[in-house]
């Protein structure tokens, strides 16, 4: 196509400028994509990981208030409940880190598989989890962070219970965004009994899976009714709502992230526009001659616009690719961050890629429009006079 050749020739005219502009746009797009992974991380948690059939049952006063473990049995008997597991915060500090660096809970090994079938944990691993009291299942994000494999042993010192766990990894939650570690309810229960206590009689949250999304509201109402005048009044909510609330306080932080992202995007527009206008300024003589020969305004406008769009699209696409590469690097070296939580998974999702590409295209158009417009509209004679 002749047209493409013309664009390439014009961009090659001042190679250094094209490279600098392209480089600047590429870096800015990388940054935009990286920043956009943060709200995307929260969205992914809410829409992909949270299931529409799971319900959290917890004390109305807060997750740190507890429910009696016996309540779990009553919950299982509610109509429409496919499975339920009690969970309790273990607060284990991984020996080498000295502090809690990933969420870890005690769960009921016989039931947890049925409550989280969408996690796709292989059946043999769940069997091992049931069989071995010291078995633990680890989410892939944490597995990767520490380079653990199935069969490794790790020590967790609880910061809330007078118990240490010498755990054996028997399974993995095959999800890049999952940092959690599950240990056996019976392990904690017996460890507490061994110290002279009555065992693990309380739970933080009882997670329930409904047989049918339509039944969710009814189940939640029934459970709340059951607990209403007891010592531990419950407030049920869907898993999505639970996570949304849990990380709700990060909304303000996310707004700031988006503001910063917008500023960087604006940077891109300025960089591209600056370059476009420099190019147009220098070529005004040429453009005047083209117009004198007879090339119409629309053709000239189109050519200039196409150059700007071509440059920013190529640069932007490279930026998206680079961002994907960088996030792979980040994933391998970082893990769950207590400050960022799900915002810190740095995974470039489909929507982020689309946003990055769209931004590049849009920026190119925006940046190319104004100078091109001016150059195309200027009367021939005026430009020729200015130049010669």
């Amino acid at each position, binding site marked *: 196509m002749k047209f493409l050749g013309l664009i390439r020739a014009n961009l090659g005219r001042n190679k250094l400028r094209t490279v600098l502009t392209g*480089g600047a746009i590429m*870096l800015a797009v990388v940054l935009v994509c990286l920043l956009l992974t943060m709200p995307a991380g929260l969205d992914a948690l809410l829409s992909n990981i949270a299931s529409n059939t799971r319900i959290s049952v917890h004390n109305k006063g807060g997750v740190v208030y507890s429910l009696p473990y016996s309540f779990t049995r009553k919950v299982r008997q509610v109509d429409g409940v496919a499975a339920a597991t009690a969970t309790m915060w273990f607060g284990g500090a991984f020996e080498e880190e*000295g502090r809690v660096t990933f969420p870890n809970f005690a769960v009921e090994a016989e039931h947890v598989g049925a409550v989280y079938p969408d996690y796709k944990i292989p059946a043999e691993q769940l069997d091992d989890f049931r069989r071995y009291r010291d078995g633990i299942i680890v989410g892939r994000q944490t597995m990767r962070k520490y380079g653990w494999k199935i069969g490794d042993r790790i020590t967790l010192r609880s910061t809330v219970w007078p118990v240490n766990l010498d755990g054996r990894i028997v399974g993995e939650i095959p999800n890049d965004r999952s940092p959690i570690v599950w240990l056996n309810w019976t392990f904690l229960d017996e460890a507490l009994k061994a110290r002279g206590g009555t065992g693990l009689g309380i739970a933080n949250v009882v997670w329930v899976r409904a047989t049918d999304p339509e039944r969710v509201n009814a189940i939640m109402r029934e459970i709340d009714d059951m607990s209403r005048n007891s010592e531990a009044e419950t407030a049920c909510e869907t898993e999505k709502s639970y996570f949304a609330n849990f990380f709700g306080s990060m909304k303000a932080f996310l*707004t700031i992230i988006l503001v910063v992202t917008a500023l*960087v995007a604006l940077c891109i527009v300025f*960089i591209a526009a600056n370059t476009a206008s420099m190019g147009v300024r220098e070529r005004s003589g040429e453009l005047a001659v083209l117009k004198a020969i007879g090339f119409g305004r629309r053709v000239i406008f189109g050519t200039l616009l196409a150059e700007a769009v071509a440059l920013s699209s190529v640069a932007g696409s490279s930026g998206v690719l680079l961002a994907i590469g960088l996030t792979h690097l980040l994933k391998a070296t970082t893990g769950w961050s207590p400050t960022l939580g799900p915002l810190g998974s740095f995974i470039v999702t489909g929507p982020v890629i689309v946003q990055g590409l769209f931004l590049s295209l849009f920026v190119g158009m925006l940046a190319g429009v104004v100078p091109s417009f001016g150059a195309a509209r200027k009367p021939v004679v005026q430009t020729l006079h200015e130049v010669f």
Partner: protein
Amino acid sequence: MLPLSYSVRNVTARPLRSLMSSSVIALVVVACSLFLGLISSLKRTVASSGDPLNVVVMRKGSDNDGASWLPLAAYQAIRFFDGIARDSADQPLISPELVVQPFFHTPAGGRENVLVRGVEPVALAVHDKVKIVEGRMFTPSSHEAVLGRGIVGRYLGAQLGDDLKFGHGTWKVVGIFDAAGSSFESEVWIDVRELANDAKRPSPFSGARLRAASAADLEPLMRRIDDDPRYALHAQREADYYAKQSESANSLYVLVIGIAVLAGIGAGFGAANAMYAAVQARTAEIGTLRALGFSRGAILLAFQIEAVALASVGFVIGALASLGLSKLLGVLLGGVGFGAATFTTNVVSLRVSSGDLVAALILAVLIGAFGGFGPAWRAARMRPIEALHKA
């Protein structure tokens, strides 16, 4: 050397063009100062939370006073250890406390975990930075509460005189306290035994804070608590305790550095573009200066200074914009909450301090210097005869 005015006047001579290039740097400055402002606010909040004479006592292995407990007998024992400061009535300044994080509901329908600290009246003496600025301290053994300044208005019922609902009960807000910008301002304080009842805790205390009589008493006191064989306790300086909490904010620094590097290099490329164009347009001028006898070093320096001047204009615009933007965001968003994953919400107000602006200035200057170097080098290397021929 070429006069400074040469460099500066070349920036002001073409205001629109200079503005386009400086604007890119301005935007980077705004982005970085906003983020830095957020992190330094967070760090400042946490850093100011530790009193140099105070000691935090928790169960051995706990890293968080919300996940710890202190047996009553242990409390009775350490109360009378030597080295603890005493008040005018010769009572030891030790504040036994219970930390719980119940749900609080925001007016917008959201829900956050807030740190509720059950205390005895002696807490005000131990945490001497905490001062009641409105209303009064709660009456012991009552269902009254006092709120830190950061809590006010953020949740339903969090106003002086209102009824605040959390846990299993209702608490009347009788006072508001100030805590010198520390994380205490994101807390609600109520009577410790009332809290223990409400949260159904068998033992009322999760930990204790005590005040050493003098700096010299700190080490021996902490060691004595740690070494006591009867109870598995760990004592640390309050400052160290909070410093550890703020370590998690370090991941945010990584983010800022990432933004500064990526955006900075991009802006540097943009500045380079502008300067290359300027050098090209002023080829004859450069040739003349070289012909007149100005050295290559003088030309290099003059163009470097011009690039840095351009960047400085960008900094000024960006600094003003970030100050305005942070105020606007502060009004629109209220406080920014941190710490969701550790079960508490630390409310931080976004503030761009002079330290943040200094960092942004350094960034802007680096961008100008880095971006301007290539073009300045090209200008300096021009041989007068070629430059004059091009005229």
